[in-house]
C-alpha cells in the first residue's frame, strides 16, 4: 500500500470523504485523548464522471432500525442468497431480482471499488425544478438594469420544463402571476405585515376550497399544475412573457424622502416566497433566489430603520447589545429558513450593495437550506454577473450542478456513534441507535436535510467512538460508516448515493504510531476550523480562540516530541507538521476575527467556509501566495512581507479575493511598456502568467473572487 497521503487522496477521489483519523482509536477514552475528534469531511455529491448511476433501487437491511444498504462490506452467502448486514449483522434475503447473483456475477454494489454507488429511483412522480426569483426593486437604475439583464439571461439557461416564478418587492411585495395574457397581473402584499403560511396561501388563492366541480375526473394530476400554475410556470411557456415582465420591471415607485432609506420589505417577500412554495410544492426541490440591494428596512425581518442617520449595526453595536432589530430579525429569518428546509426548498441570497444588507440576520436562510450566498458591491459588476451565471453551469452530462431536497443519513457500526454535522444542513431529528448523546455541530440526529447542494457542497461530520476501553476490538477489526444521500437530481430524478467506508481500529496505547501516521492534518484542520467557526456563531470570539489554542496545545502535548523546558527541542511528526500553521492562520482569519469586518462580511465568510470542500477551505484558512519571476516556474512563498521583491510578481489567493502584485521593477518595466516590445516578449509572458493563473482560479471558483491587481507606486 502506498502512503497514507495517497490512500487519503484515493479515498477522496472515490468517495468524497476525508477523515481526520484514518486509523481509529478503538476506545472512547483514547479517542478523546486524541484531541482532534474522529470526523470526516464529506462531499456527498462529489462529481464522479466515472460512476454511472445504477438504474435500480438499493437493497435494504430488513431490520427496521437499521435499514443499511447492501454494500461491499457485507458478507454474502451466494448459495443461500443471503447477505449479512455489516452494521447490525442481520441476515437478509436477497430480493427476487438478485436470484442470479454469484461470486462471478455480482451486482455493482458488492464490488469493492464501488464503495460509492448511485441509484436512480424510478418510482414516484418526477417534479420539475423550480426557481423562484425574489427581486428587490429598491435599486439604482444601473443596478436594476444589470440585474434585469442577469435575470433575463438566466432564463435562457434554465431547462425548458423548469418552473419559474417571480416575486418583486420594495415597499410592497408583488407576486407576479405569469399565466395571464395581456394584462400583467400580480398579487400585492403589504411589506410590513407578517403573514402566516396559511394567510399567504389564502391570499394567493392557493387554498381553493376543494370544490368537487368534476368529481368524475381523476383530479390528481390535473389539479396540481392548475393551482400552482398561476405563479410558477414552465419556462418554455412563459419565456417571452417573463422576459418582458423583467424588462418592464420598474424601480420601486414610492418616493424616498431625503435622508431616508428606501423601504424594503425583504422579510415579507421571503416569507411569501417560502409560503408560496410551501403551499404549492412541498417536499419538492425548489430554489428561492433572493436578490437584494440593501438592508430590509421595514416589517418583520427589518434590520435597520429607514433613517439614514442611524447606521446599520456593526460588531461594536452587537457587542454593546445595541442592535435593536437583530434578534427579532434573526428569529424571523430562522423561522423562514426552517420552514423552507422542512419543505426541501433552498434559499439563495444575492446581496449587492456598498453597505451591509443584513446578511448577518439572513444567513440562516442560506446556511440551513444549502443555498448560495453571494455578496457584491453592485449587480452591475462582473463579479455578480459571472457568479450568478455560474450557478447555472452544467456538468459533463449537461445537467445542472445542483441538487435539491437531499437527506443525508449516516449509519455507523456499533463502536461508533454520530455526534453531529457542520455544513449547509438542518437536523431531521431522527434518533436512532447510532446517534451520540454528545453533540458536535448539529447533532442529536442521524439524518440531516440539505435542501440545496452542488458537487462541492461539503459537510463536516463528527463521530464519537463509544467502544469501551475494556471491550477491545479484535485485531484487524474495522469500523464502518455508511452515508446515504437521497436527493433530487437536476435531471429531476430521485437518486440515492450510498458511500460505505471502513477504517481499521487500532489500540491507541499500543499502536499510537499507526494512528499518528494516519492523521490527515488537512482534514483535521478544516474540521477543527469548522468546529471553531460553529462555536464562534454562538460564543464570544476570545472564548473560541482560547478553545482553539487549548486544543492545539493538547494536540502538541499528545503527539509532539520534546524535552521539557526546552522549546527548541519540540518536534512534530510529518503528519502533524502543517497543522499548527493552519491553526495560526485560522486564528487570524476573518472566520474568527471580526475586526475590520462588518457583521455581514463575517457571516458571508463563515457561510462559505462551512460549505466548501477541503482544498478551498484550506485556501480560506491559509491563503496561497505564489511568486513569479524570470528565474523559474512560479513558486509558493511565505505569507510574509519578505516575499515582496522588486523583480517578482506575486499572486495571492484568499478564496474571496485574488490579488496580483507587481514588484517595483516589474511595475516600472510595465510602465515603460517593455511588454509591447517584441524583443521583451518573455516579459510579456511573465506579466501574463499570473493573470492566466488567476483566470483559471476565477473560472473554477464559486463565488467569483474579487480580482485586484496593483503595485506600489
Amino acid at each position, binding site marked *: 500500500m502506498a502512503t497514507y497521503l495517497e490512500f487519503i487522496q484515493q479515498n477522496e477521489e472515490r468517495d468524497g470523504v476525508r477523515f481526520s483519523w484514518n486509523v481509529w482509536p478503538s476506545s472512547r477514552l483514547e479517542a478523546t485523548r486524541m484531541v482532534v475528534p474522529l470526523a470526516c469531511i464529506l462531499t456527498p455529491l462529489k462529481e464522479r464522471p466515472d460512476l454511472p448511476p445504477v438504474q435500480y433501487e438499493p437493497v435494504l437491511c430488513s431490520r427496521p432500525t437499521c435499514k443499511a444498504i447492501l454494500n461491499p462490506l457485507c458478507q454474502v452467502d451466494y448459495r443461500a442468497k443471503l447477505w449479512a448486514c455489516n452494521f447490525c449483522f442481520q441476515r437478509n434475503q436477497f430480493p427476487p431480482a438478485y436470484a442470479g447473483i454469484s461470486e462471478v456475477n455480482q451486482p455493482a454494489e458488492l464490488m469493492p471499488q464501488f464503495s460509492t454507488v448511485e441509484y436512480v429511483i424510478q418510482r414516484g412522480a418526477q417534479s420539475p425544478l423550480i426557481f423562484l426569483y425574489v427581486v428587490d426593486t429598491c435599486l439604482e437604475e444601473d443596478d436594476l438594469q444589470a440585474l434585469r439583464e442577469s435575470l433575463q439571461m438566466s432564463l435562457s439557461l434554465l431547462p425548458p420544463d423548469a418552473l419559474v416564478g417571480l416575486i418583486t418587492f420594495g415597499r410592497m411585495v*408583488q407576486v407576479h402571476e405569469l399565466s395571464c395574457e*395581456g*394584462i400583467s397581473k400580480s*398579487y*400585492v*402584499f403589504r411589506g410590513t405585515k407578517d403573514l402566516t403560511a396559511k394567510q399567504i396561501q389564502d391570499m*394567493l*388563492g392557493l387554498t381553493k376550497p376543494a370544490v368537487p366541480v368534476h368529481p368524475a375526473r381523476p383530479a390528481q394530476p390535473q389539479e396540481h399544475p392548475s393551482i400552482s400554475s398561476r405563479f410558477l410556470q414552465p419556462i418554455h411557456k412563459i419565456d417571452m412573457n417573463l422576459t418582458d415582465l423583467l424588462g418592464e420591471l420598474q424601480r420601486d415607485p*414610492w418616493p424616498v424622502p431625503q435622508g431616508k432609506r428606501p423601504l424594503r420589505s425583504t422579510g415579507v417577500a421571503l416569507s411569501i416566497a417560502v409560503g408560496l412554495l410551501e403551499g404549492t410544492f412541498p417536499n419538492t426541490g425548489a430554489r428561492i433566489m433572493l436578490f437584494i440591494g440593501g438592508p430590509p428596512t421595514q416589517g418583520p425581518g427589518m434590520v435597520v430603520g429607514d433613517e439614514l442617520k442611524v447606521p446599520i449595526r456593526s460588531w461594536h453595536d452587537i457587542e454593546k447589545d445595541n442592535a435593536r432589530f437583530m434578534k427579532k430579525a434573526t428569529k424571523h429569518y430562522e423561522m423562514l429558513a426552517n420552514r423552507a428546509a422542512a419543505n426541501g426548498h433552498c434559499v439563495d441570497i444575492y446581496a449587492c450593495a456598498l453597505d451591509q444588507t443584513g446578511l448577518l440576520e439572513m444567513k440562516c436562510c442560506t446556511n440551513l437550506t444549502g443555498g448560495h450566498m453571494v455578496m457584491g458591491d453592485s449587480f452591475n459588476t462582473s463579479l455578480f454577473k459571472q457568479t450568478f451565471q455560474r450557478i447555472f453551469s452544467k456538468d459533463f452530462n449537461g445537467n445542472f450542478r445542483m441538487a435539491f431536497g437531499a437527506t443525508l443519513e449516516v449509519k455507523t457500526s456499533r463502536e461508533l456513534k454520530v455526534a453531529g454535522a457542520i455544513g449547509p444542513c438542518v437536523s431531521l431529528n431522527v434518533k436512532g441507535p447510532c446517534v451520540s448523546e454528545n453533540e458536535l455541530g448539529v447533532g442529536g440526529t442521524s439524518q440531516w436535510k440539505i435542501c440545496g447542494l452542488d458537487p462541492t457542497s461539503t459537510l463536516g461530520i463528527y463521530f464519537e467512538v463509544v467502544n469501551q476501553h475494556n471491550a477491545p476490538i479484535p485485531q484487524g477489526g474495522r469500523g464502518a460508516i455508511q452515508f446515504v444521500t437521497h436527493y433530487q437530481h437536476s435531471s429531476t430524478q430521485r437518486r440515492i448515493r450510498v458511500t460505505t467506508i471502513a477504517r481499521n481500529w487500532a489500540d491507541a496505547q499500543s499502536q499510537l504510531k499507526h494512528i499518528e501516521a494516519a492523521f490527515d492534518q488537512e482534514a483535521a484542520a478544516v474540521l477543527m476550523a469548522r468546529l471553531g467557526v460553529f462555536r464562534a456563531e454562538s460564543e464570544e470570539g476570545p472564548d473560541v480562540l482560547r478553545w482553539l489554542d487549548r486544543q492545539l496545545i493538547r494536540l502538541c502535548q499528545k503527539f509532539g516530541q520534546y524535552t521539557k523546558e526546552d522549546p527548541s527541542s519540540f518536534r512534530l511528526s510529518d503528519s502533524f507538521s502543517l497543522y499548527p500553521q493552519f491553526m495560526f492562520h485560522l486564528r487570524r482569519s476573518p472566520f474568527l476575527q471580526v475586526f475590520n469586518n462588518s457583521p455581514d462580511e463575517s457571516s458571508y465568510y463563515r457561510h462559505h467556509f462551512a460549505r466548501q470542500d477541503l482544498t478551498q477551505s484550506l485556501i480560506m484558512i491559509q491563503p496561497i501566495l505564489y511568486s513569479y519571476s524570470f528565474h523559474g516556474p512560479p513558486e509558493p512563498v511565505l505569507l510574509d512581507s519578505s516575499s515582496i521583491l522588486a523583480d517578482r510578481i506575486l499572486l495571492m489567493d484568499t478564496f474571496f479575493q485574488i490579488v496580483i502584485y507587481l514588484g517595483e521593477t516589474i511595475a516600472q518595466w510595465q510602465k515603460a511598456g517593455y511588454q509591447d516590445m517584441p524583443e521583451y516578449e518573455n516579459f510579456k509572458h511573465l506579466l501574463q502568467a499570473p493573470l492566466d493563473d488567476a483566470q483559471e482560479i476565477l473560472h473554477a471558483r464559486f463565488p467569483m473572487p474579487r480580482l485586484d491587481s496593483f503595485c506600489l507606486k
Partner: protein
Amino acid sequence: MNLNQSAPPVPPFGQPQPAYLGHHQSSYGGQPGSTTAPTSYGAYNGPVPGYQQTPPPGVSRAPPSSGAPPASTAQGPCGQTAYGQFGQGDVQNGPSSTVQMQRLPGYQPFGSAILAPVVSQPAVLQPYGPPPTSAQVTAQLAGMQISGAVAPASPPSGLGYGPPTSLASASGSFPNSGLYGSYPQGQAPPLGQPQGHPGAQPPQRSVPLQASSFTPPASGGPRMPSMTGPLLPGQSFGGPPVSQPNHVSSPAPQVLPAGTQMTGPPGPPPPPMHSSQQPGYQLQQNGSYGPTRGPQSNYGSPYPGAAAFGSQPGPPQPLPPKRLDPDAIPSPIQVIEDDRNNRGSEPFVTGVRGQVPPLVTTDFLVKDQGNASPRYIRCTSYNIPCTSDMAKQAQVPLAAVIKPLARLPPEEASPYVVDHGESGPLRCNRCKAYMCPFMQFVEGGRRFQCCFCSCINDVPPQYFQHLDHTGKRVDAYDRPELSLGSYEFLATVDYCKNNKFPSPPAFIFMIDVSYNAIRSGLVRLLCEELKSLLDFLPREGGAEESAVRVGFVTYNKVLHFYNVKSSLAQPQMMVVSDVGDMFVPLLDGFLVNVNESQAVITSLLDQIPEMFADTRETETVFAPVIQAGMEALKAAECAGKLFLFHTSLPIAEAPGKLKNRDDRKLINTDKEKTLFQPQTGAYQTLAKECVAQGCCVDLFLFPNQYVDVATLSVVPQLTGGSVYKYACFQVENDQERFLSDLRRDVQKVVGFDAVMRVRTSTGIRAVDFFGAFYMSNTTDVELAGLDGDKTVTVEFRHDDRLNEESGALLQCALLYTSCAGQRRLRIHNLALNCCTQLADLYRNCETDTLINYMAKFAYRGVLNSPVKTVRDTLITQCAQILACYRKNCASPSSAGQLILPECMKLLPVYLNCVLKSDVLQPGAEVTTDDRAYVRQLVTSMDVAETNVFFYPRLLPLTKSPIENTTEPPAVRASEERLSNGDIYLLENGLNLFLWVGASVQQGVVQSLFGVSSFSQITSGLSVLPVLDNLLSKKVRGLIDSLRAQRSRYMKLIVVKQEDKLETLFKHFLVEDKSLSGGASYVDFLCHMHKEIRQLLS
C-alpha cells in the same frame, strides 16, 4: 375687483310683505262636540292621547281682527272667507275667474264692513285693506259642519257654535269611513233636499275638510249660508240668498276655505274630469287656495266678481251631503299653480329682509341684492319669533335648508370670486364671520362692527374705503362681499390641510367583478361607458381638460388595482388579497391623467370584462374597497371621490363583513329601528377616516336581493356621497337609467374636503344638522364631498332674545376644494325678520321647507325610536303648530271649524304624505333595503325634491290640446282624478309612470305606442316608441324635460289601468288611502282637526 354691477337699489328693510294684509280667520264650522274618537280610524291607531294636549281656550285673535266684536266677528269672517274663497277659485280656474270676481265685489262691501281679516286670501283681503293679518285659511271639517248643520239655528253663530253634541258624535264616526254617515244627516235636511244631488258626490259640501280656507264668513248670517251654500252644492249653490237658510241650517260651517267650493256653481265651467263624482266642484278649490302667499295684487282687481256670487246662488242645487268634498280641501295643485302665476313672472329680488320666496315649484329668476338666493337657502319661516317662548308656543321648527353649491339657471350668474390677497378673507376677529353686506362700517370706514357678534374690528389699511353720507362704503357695489348675498373668497394656504395648497382631486372607479356583476352585463356596460365618459370629467371654468385624475380598481373577494401609467404598453393588475389590512399597492401609475393614459385606460377597460368573464367568485368585500380608495387618495395626498359599483351583500371574510339580517317581522315592533341602523360600527369609523382624507364615496348598488343598504350607505352618507340603487339590474331594462345617472354623477361639479359652518347673529344658534355629512364637533359640518344636489338642513334654536329691528342673520360659510384643486370659501348670507306677534310667523312660513325639515327629522328619528312614535310625534307637532295658530292668530270662530294658516294650509296633506311614505309606513312590497335607501336619499334632498317626492306630480297628457306645448297643469294625486279615457304621467323625482286609461281613444294609443289597441300595449314598458306624430313627440319631450329637472334619471314604467302594475302606481296617489294603511287626505285632515280640537279644548 371690478364688479360691474349696477348699484342695486336696496329696498329698505321695510316690511316685506305689504301684500299680506288680510287676516284670514277660519271659523270652525264644526261643533265642539266633535270629540268623538272614532275607533274606526284605523290609520291612526285610535286617538292618541298625546294630541289632546293644549286646549287653547281663549280666542286670541290677530290684532286686526280683534276690532270686531266677537259675535260679529264670527259671522263676519265667515262671510268674508267665503268670498275670498270664491275669488281665489276663480283665479285658478282661469276662465272662471271672472265669475268669481263678480261675486266678490258683492261681498266685499260686506266683508269690509264686517271683518277684514277673515278672508282667506290675502288678495281678497287687500281690498279690505285694513287688517294686515296673515291670511288664514279656515276649513271646517265636514264632521263639524254636519253638526253645524244640525244647529242651524242662528245663522251667524250657528256655524261655529251651533253644533249639537250629537252631531259631533256623528262626525266622529265619519272621519274614518269614507261614508261619513253623519253628514248626510246633517246636511240632508237643509241642503240635500233642495239640491237633490243624489249619488254623485256626496256631500261634498260638507266639506269639513275643505279645510283650508274656509273662514266662516262672519258677516251676516245670511252670508254665511250663502257661502256655505255654494260650497255644498258645489256648483249649484249659487244663490247665496236663497241658500242662506240652507246654509245656516246645514253645513254652513264648513266654510271651506274661501271661495273654493262654491265658486263652482254657476259661472265656471262645469268640472270636467271628475264628472262622475263631483262635477261641479273642481273649480272651486283651486281658485280659492291659490293666492295664499303672495301679495295678490292681482286678486284685488279681479274680485269684482264677488257680485256674481250672489247671483249664482240662484240655482241652488240639491246637495247630497255625505262626504267631505275632496275638492274643497286645500289643494297642493292649486297652491302651486297660483304661486306660479303670481310670482313666476317677476324676478325675486333678495334685497329685502325676510321676504318669503316663491315656491320651489315656481320658475323664477333671482336677483341677488344682498341676501342669498332661495336656491341656496330656504327657511321654514322668514320671520322668527323674538323669544324662545314664542317659538316654543308655535312649535314651528326654525330651520334652514341650505344647498351651498346649488346649480343656478344659466340666466343667473354664479357667485363672484373675491380675492383678498395674502391676508385672506376679511373676518370678524371674534366670531370669525366673513365680511358681508350686513357688516356696519363706522368711524369713517376705519372700523367695522360685526353684524353677528357686534365686535368692533379694525379695517385693514388695504381694505379701507371712505363712507358715503348714508354710512355705506363708497365701493360697496364694487365689492361682492359688500353687496351680494352669495360670493366666494379665494382661500389662502391657512385654509388648507397641512398648510399646503391641495392637489387636484381624483376619481377612483371601483368595480365589483363578482359573478353577479359579470352575469348581469354590468361590468361590460360600465367599462364601455367609462371609455367615453372619462372625457367629460368635471372641469372648472374654461379649462381645456379636467384636472381630475382617475384610477381603477376591480374587486370581488380581493381587490385588483391597475397601473395605467401612460408609459406602459399594457395595464398592470395588482391584486391585494389582504383585505383585512387594506393598503394601496402602487402610487405611481394608479391615478393618472385621462388624456395621457388614454390608450392604456382603453385597453384596460376592454380587458376587464374579458378577464373576469369566467369568474365563479360570488363573494364580495366592501369596507376594504372603500378603505383602499381612501388609502389611495391619502397616498396621493389629494381629495377625491370613489365610484363604487357593487352588487351583493359583502359576506367574504373581511372587515365590514355583513350578514343577512333582513327581517320583516320586525316591522311595527320596537326593534324596527335596527333595520335602519348599520350592522356594525366599522363603517362609521371608516367614514370618519374618509372624511379626514376628503374622500367622498358614491355608491351604485345592483342588488338581486338584500344587500343591507342601511349599512352600506353609511359611508356615502357620512362622506357627502350619493347612493344609487338598481334592484335586479338588467342591462336591457336599466341601462339607460344607470348610464344617465352615472354620467350625471361623474360630470357634476363637486367640492371636496369641505367644511361648512353656519354662523348666526346673537340670539339664535344652529343646533342641529341633517344631511349627508359628518360632524366631529357641534358646529362644523364636514363634507368629504359636496355636489350641487346635496342639501344640509340646519335647525336653529333661541339662546337669547332677538330684536325686531335688527332681525336675525345667517351666514353659511363653506370651505372647499374645487374640482380644479382650488381652495375656496363660499359664503351665503341671509337676513330674516323677527317678530313679536305669532301671526307674523305664520304669515311668513314656507310649508315645503317645513315638510323638508320634518321629513328629515322623522327619518332620522326612526334610527332611534319606533316608527310609531316618530309618526305620532310628527302628528302632534303639526297639530300643535296649527292649534297654536288657531288659538293665537285666527279670529274666533266655531271650534268645529278647521282654520289653517294660509301659508300652511298644505301642511296636513304634505304631512300625511310623509307619514305614508315607505319609511314610516311600509307597504308589503317595500323591502327593507328600499326603506333604508329612501331614508338616506331624503336626508340630503332639497325642498323641491322633497316636495315632489312626497306629493308626486300627476300630469294629464291628453286633456289639453295637442298643440299646446306647455306642460299640462297637474292634477291632484288621487285615483278619483284619473279618467279612464286619458293618459297620465306621474313622477316623484325617483319614479315615472305613464298611466293609460282603459278607454283611451285608439288613435291616441296608436300614435303613442304604435299599437292598435289598449290591450296590445305592453304593461311595464319602459320606453315609448319613437313615432313621428305630434302626440308622441310631445309626450316624449315632456318625459325628457321631466327627467332633466331631476337629479336622478327616472325610469319610465307604463301602467295600464286595471293591470297588476297598477297597484304599484296607486301607491303614489297619495291623497288616497294607501294599501299599507296610510290615511287618505280627507281622513287625515279630519284626524288632524280632531287633534287640534283636542289641543284647543
